[in-house]
């Protein structure tokens, strides 16, 4: 069986800066895989390369067996890959409802969209009360909820989440991760990028540690969480 997502020897450079130097990993259908690492390790770059926002200088990305190289970002979405970007990327000039609509932009199955929208609002009831509100007026936590809900409206086979915990209070982080777990349980495959290794390794099946553009450690999430070196470097345990 081939994996749902295969990232193979991925190299990305920004001008002269080599951000990724040969990253390879796979995500199987139904898994939650996390990519952890410090600031500037290349986590966001990896997701952007998968989504087609940056062009790799070398290597390949395959999704459901087909290469994504050279495919425009909006066509990648059409193939079943949805990306909630770092910093949430909420359209602050649109209402909450319109943000959700945009998430389903490519879908034509009205009934299916209505059902998924209902489901997303059940996962994030706070959004329901704020549908008509301008999305820019939401709190950080609510914006993150909207970013995830919006990404779900594309009905993705694979959901890419870039630092959903960024800048949020611990209770909100806990709430968000609980919902990420729920989404995974309902059958969506997830590739989760996090600096919050503690939370990420709790929800993930598999973890990879990224350091300055290369994967240094990989393994079952539970094993990584128990690894002394990782505990020291990423979990703040001394």
């Amino acid at each position, binding site marked *: 069986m081939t994996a749902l997502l295969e990232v193979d020897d991925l190299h990305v450079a920004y001008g002269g800066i080599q951000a990724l130097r040969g990253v390879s990993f796979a995500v199987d259908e139904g898994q939650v895989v996390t990519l952890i690492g410090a600031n500037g390790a290349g986590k966001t770059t990896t997701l952007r390369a998968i989504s087609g926002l940056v062009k790799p200088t070398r290597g390949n990305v395959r999704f459901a067996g087909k290469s994504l190289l050279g495919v425009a970002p*909006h066509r990648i*979405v059409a193939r079943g890959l949805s990306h909630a970007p770092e910093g949430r*990327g909420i*359209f602050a000039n*649109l209402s909450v409802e319109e943000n959700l*609509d*945009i998430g389903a*932009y*490519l879908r034509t199955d009205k009934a299916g969209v209505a059902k998924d929208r209902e489901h997303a609002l059940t996962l994030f009831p706070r959004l329901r009360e704020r549908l008509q509100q301008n999305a820019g007026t939401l709190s950080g936590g609510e914006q993150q909820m909207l970013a995830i809900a*919006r990404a779900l409206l594309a009905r993705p086979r694979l959901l890419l989440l870039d630092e959903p915990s960024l800048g949020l209070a611990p209770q909100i982080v806990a709430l968000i991760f609980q919902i990420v777990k729920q989404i995974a349980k309902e059958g969506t495959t997830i590739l989760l990028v996090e600096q919050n290794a503690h939370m990420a390794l709790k929800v993930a099946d598999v973890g990879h540690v990224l350091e300055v553009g290369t994967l240094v450690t990989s393994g079952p999430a539970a094993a990584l969480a128990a690894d002394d070196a990782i505990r020291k470097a990423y979990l703040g345990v001394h």
Partner: protein
Amino acid sequence: MTKFVQLLLQTLTLGSLYALIALGYTLVYGILRFINFAHSDVVTFGAWIAFAIAGALGWASTGSPVFAMPVVMVLAMAASAALGFTIERLAYRPLRKAPRLNVLITAIGVSLLLQNAGQLQALFGKDPVKMPRLLSEAPLFKLAGVQVPWVDVVLVVLTIALVIALQWLVFRTKLGQAMRAVSWSEQTAALMGVPVDKVVSITFMIGSALAAAGGVLYGLKYRQLNQTADALWMLLGLKAFVAAVVGGIGNVRGAVLGAVLIAFIEVFGAGYVSSKMPDLFVFGVLIVMLLFRPAGLLGTPTVEKV
């Protein structure tokens, strides 16, 4: 009173022309954050192509049928939309990720190209022409002693209809939603499945079609079409641009409000203060606005897009 009504009527017609042109500047700025300096040349092209179409269809002389004006208008708008599409595709799209200054210089280059190409004998030529009278200049009704001609009424009513249609498109349709999303962030819009290039193309086409409507109506009202590089066209475009900035560039309602305000100041300034330098008032308003409210009347102060 008669003078006042006369000036008011002038404000409405001139404001309508400015509004149609200003909308193109504001739409393109709203979505790409750049000033399309070639926009006023699309206005000129729209007016001239309408003249050419009317001639080709045999409506150059008097006594053209009533449907002549709508037919010429629709064809000129379509031709200008095609021109706008081509300009974006060939000149601006390759520079989408280049520094803004490069795009600006390219836009000036496109403008010069259109101004000079238009003077070729094979295109519109060097000599001014008289636009055929496709709209009656006969009075439709009389208001406080002022004869209101057909052409003025059609001009204002058509502008209002186009503005309402645009407003509906931008705020009530899926395409409009996509346009607003791209305006906020091209990349995030792409991540949602929005075909950004297509949305940008359509935006240019809509802006260019509205510019053509402005150009054609200008021709029908003032009748005289100067050659494409004439300063008159540039001034028309420039004042519409000022209207867009004063209203808050990027804001559709702002462009209309700014257009009416600029026309009001120009017309009433000339009518009651001094008829020597009406443009002085227009650019005076621009300077005052830039000093005290740089985001414009309806614009929200925003941080520069990164």
